[in-house]
């Protein structure tokens, strides 16, 4: 056997094991999902072909529409503040020294907690029944606020919980982006007597726009799939005011056993995430060809 032929088989031997798992546990379910979504199917394997029936059902399902609205509102309340706060923190903490290092550790810390622990902690912070915030309000002579059972406050409450939990990763990404900006640009700007605001607007932000785009794309995709916080904090209540799309998928599949319909909703969510990600990418990068 010559070297090229040996390389060929060696190549498959090296990439084969991963591709096998990838095909069996990702590609096959992905294809199965499309097929199942065209069936009236339950969790126990009973199937009947109904074409696009599940999708037309989704169009007219008021519960799904409410969940879609809740999910979009959550994403809007989480992604922009998260990106701005993370950017400000990264700008402030991108400096040498012990003080900054300790604060970086503090702001990264919540990201290692699981959703179960985060919601456990925040449930007892938010509860009007002697929760941490309620205790503070009481000390200030104010009545406790029932964050999780007020339909107008439940979504902001989940958003704040999520912000607290998710802050570390974007800060890390943006800090990493800032480290890549060559230092001599800043020296040149300092020689030109540019103000800090000008440096930020004309040098720093353009230099890390790719990183900011990555943060927004990842966070949008993640928050549109928000599940654990809603399921554990409120179970979607009160009256569906905090039911998200993925929580609804969970209820339809494992509560009502309507696997076909749940899968169709999941496919719609998949399409929505892909479309939004591509849109964000296009909006940020469309001018890049002309500019450079």
């Amino acid at each position, binding site marked *: 056997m010559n070297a090229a032929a040996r390389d060929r088989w060696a190549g498959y031997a090296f990439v084969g094991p991963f591709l096998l798992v990838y095909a069996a546990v990702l590609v096959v379910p992905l294809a199965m999902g499309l097929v199942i979504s065209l069936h009236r199917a339950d969790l126990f394997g009973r199937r009947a072909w109904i074409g696009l029936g599940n999708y037309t059902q989704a169009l007219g399902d008021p519960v799904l529409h409410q969940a879609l609205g809740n999910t979009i509102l959550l994403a809007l309340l989480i992604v922009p503040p998260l990106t701005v706060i993370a950017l400000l923190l990264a700008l402030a903490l991108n400096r040498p020294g012990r003080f900054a290092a300790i604060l970086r550790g503090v702001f990264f810390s919540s990201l290692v907690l699981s959703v*179960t622990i985060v919601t456990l902690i925040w449930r007892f912070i938010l509860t009007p029944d002697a929760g941490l915030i309620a205790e503070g309000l009481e000390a200030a002579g104010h009545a406790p606020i029932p964050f999780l059972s007020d339909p107008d406050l439940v979504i902001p409450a989940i958003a704040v919980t999520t912000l607290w939990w998710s802050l570390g990763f974007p800060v890390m990404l943006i800090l*990493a982006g800032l480290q890549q900006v060559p230092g001599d640009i800043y020296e040149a700007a300092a020689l030109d007597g540019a103000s*800090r605001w000008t440096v930020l607007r004309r040098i720093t932000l353009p230099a890390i726009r790719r990183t900011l785009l990555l943060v927004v794309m990842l966070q949008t995709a993640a928050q549109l799939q928000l599940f654990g916080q809603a399921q554990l904090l409120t179970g979607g209540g009160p009256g569906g005011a905090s039911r998200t799309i993925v929580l609804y998928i969970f209820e339809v599949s494992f509560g009502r056993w309507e696997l076909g319909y749940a899968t169709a909703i999941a496919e719609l969510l998949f399409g929505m995430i892909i479309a939004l990600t591509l849109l964000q990418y296009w909006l940020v990068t469309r001018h890049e060809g002309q500019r450079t």
Partner: protein
Amino acid sequence: MSAHRLSPLATVLLVLGAAVMLAPMAWTLLLSFKSNAALMADSGAAFAGPYTFENYAAILKGSLTLQWLANSLVVATGAAVGVLVLSSLAGYGFARLEFPFRRTLFVIVLLGLAVPEQAVILPRHQLFAWLGLHNTYPGLILPSLTGSFGVFFMTQYFRAIPRELDEAALLDGASRFTLFWKVLLPLTLPAQATLGVFTFLAAWNDYWWPLISATTSDYFTLTVGLASAQMNYAQTSGLGFLMAQAVFASIPILIVYIAFQKQIVRAMAGTAVR
């Protein structure tokens, strides 16, 4: 790197922000050392003694928490080891070897980065039911092994290693596998540490998949077990115990985080720019 000093206002805001980050954790820690009875009477009692270890003692004797801890360790370690083995092999193959459809296969793997969990989780649940994989360790670990990120990450890392190393080793008569195992793999250890820690963290904290795959309490991971405990307790009757469980469940992951903080942060520097 900006050499400007932080303004006093920025410093105050940062310290306040840090307090907001830490207060919930500190409060949890305090609650975990209070007896359930004392908290039932007055949850404000957390801010004063007496403190007790009884909640931690209750976890260590009898409760299922230790079993869940063991399950989480097995699942997260299995996921991390599995991802490292598969991604290193595939990364080397994609970076260094020439074979038919190499580019096509690589693109197919990269497309996996765009597939959200929701698009596959329900059919995967069905598939694993047919294969009898629910309530088993392989059933909990396998979904973690499909991550395209690890393959992409290792491919990039192998590509950055100079090819002269390969040629020298091959001239010395080394086989492809010896070259991979003895020469190149040791050079990728920093990447292995990073990828391993991230996979471990993600598998340790995963909730959605173990929630639907592990349905008997013997196979609960800590995330699912603690969730079930939350549901079982009335609002405040077991508050101290629940908080002790939360602290207890966070200890292993905090150890991993503190031990590998440097690698985690350094790795971010590598991924953010691409």
